[in-house]
């Protein structure tokens, strides 16, 4: 299992050829209480960096961009009734979507856990 991070605070946790995508703990803290999540339709193909979902809090709205290219194979419908899961458990129950990767090499250009931690130190 490999987890990688983007500069816009998305993560992708890859097992086999499928990645679970969500936003990091830092991102959910910046947003505040999440009130609404808009997820893509299953089957949509996304290129790396394209807008995959939107997440809204009381005071902000943010795009969640696809960390890697691929096809959406599943979305977390629990977020419709419980958007707060994104705040409670961003890396677990607060996942957004599952994507079947079309180009695993893209993962090499993302940050690993240590690199992301360093990145956060510089940002905050």
């Amino acid at each position: 299992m490999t987890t990688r991070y983007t500069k816009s605070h998305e993560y992708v946790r890859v097992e086999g050829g499928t990645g679970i995508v969500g936003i990091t703990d830092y991102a959910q803290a910046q947003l505040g209480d999440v009130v609404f999540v808009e997820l893509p339709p299953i089957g949509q193909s996304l290129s790396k960096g394209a807008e995959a979902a939107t997440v809204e809090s009381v005071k902000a709205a943010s795009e969640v961009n696809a960390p890697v290219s691929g096809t959406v194979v599943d979305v977390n419908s629990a977020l419709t009734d419980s958007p707060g899961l994104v705040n409670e458990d961003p890396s677990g129950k607060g996942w957004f979507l599952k994507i079947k990767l079309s180009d695993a090499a893209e993962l090499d250009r993302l940050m690993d856990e240590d690199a992301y931690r360093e990145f956060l130190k510089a940002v905050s």
Partner: protein
Amino acid sequence: MLMRQERAMEVAPEAKTFTGNRALEIEEGLIFETGRPENTGVDLDEPLPFKHRLGSLERQEPTGLPGLSEPETMRHYVRLSRQNYAIDAGIYPLGSCTMKHNPRLNEAMARLPGFTDIHPLQPQSTVQGALELIAELARWLMVMTGMDAVAMSPRAGAHGEACGMMAIKAAIAAKGEGETRKTVLVPESAHGTNPASAAGAGFEVRPLPARADGTLDPAEVKSRLGPDVAAIMLTNPNTCGLFEKDAVEIAALGHEAGAYFYCDGANFNAIMGKTRPGDLGVDAMHINLHKTFSTPHGGGGPGAGPVVLSSRLAPFAPVPFLRREESGFRLVEHLGEAPGTFGRIAAFHGQMGMFVRAFAYMLSHGADGLRQAAEDAVLNANYIRASLKDLLSGPFGDRPCMHEVLFDETWLKPTGLTTLDFAKAMIDEGFHPMTIYFPLVAHGAMLIEPTESESKASLDLFIAALRDLALAARRGDTGRFAGAPHYAPRRRLDEARAARIPILKWAKPVG
């Protein structure tokens, strides 16, 4: 039998009263809980029997809307009103809003039947006084700004921005550059309506960063100009309360590159009578009559946003506009009569009610009074700045501001408190908080605009209270901040819940 409500009023834990009321502070339900559809506070005589001409479209379903007698209606809305803060009650230091005193003379004049009881489509010969007022107001706006024309029809500032950007788009199309010039440069500190208005007019928005002193760098602007840029949208003074000192050069650079210069006039209160936007190279600027010219904010409107235009943009002005002819004033309303016009942005002619109020304000002040107002507004803001700068931090160092002063939350960080906490504690002290978290370029922004309507005594009390709060924060005395406000009609409201479970109208409780 105490109440007619369907359920008992909620009693706040700290109220210790049966009703939940706290002396003059009354808990008031919704009209849907106190009124009934069969009640009414208006006496109307049932019409004599007649044959209706409604076809098959007579309404079958009742609206279910409650009615209240006149005494009940008065009481309901008087009680509700008493839960509101207001300019008439205290300083309202919202940066960027210009919450100055709303003179009551304006209200009386706007209510003269000759202004309030005239229809926009009655024959123009029967409303010459109204047209003359609009023409005079327009003239004052043009003289104050040094511009050649003015579009009077926008209903609010944002509507004015849309109007100005549309005039620019029409001018660009007339030069045959409509397919190439599609980008508008907007500072990161701009009010959200700026990019929204540009996007609404079909432009793409590109941000402009400010330099360290909070203003725009002409070199930075120049590097972003090109044949694809339609316009630069600036606010001057900007949203940080600073005069864009290189505005003239930036305007010239823009013009040289074939672009137009839109100015957001929300902060005109700082410079009226001191300089003219027309002299600074502006092509279009909206003026918020509900800010600079004292028309009341009314809890969120109505406003008015007339747009002054340079000679380059005047030919594209929207309909309707006024023409002075031998027989009198005439509104040109039809697209066919105005060859260059970009079109019409709303029905009828504009916010006449706000025109009367703004004109009464201008007449009362005169040229000397308007200049004095701008000077007092800038003086008051700098007085606050000078009196708080040792305690509060700002993003651009110790320098004079114009009519509003910008602080940030750097000084609060070590205390663990936020700008929001500080603002809510101000409520307990009897003040409406300043604008917070805008502009976005400052962290935890606190934007204070006192306006010229504050006396020195009022400012001194405000300053003393803020100093006391600031010192308390630094001392670690968090009691006044945690969970503030404590004394307002409501404690902090759960905004996350309101967004997660939207309840946007009353519904009869089930069971």
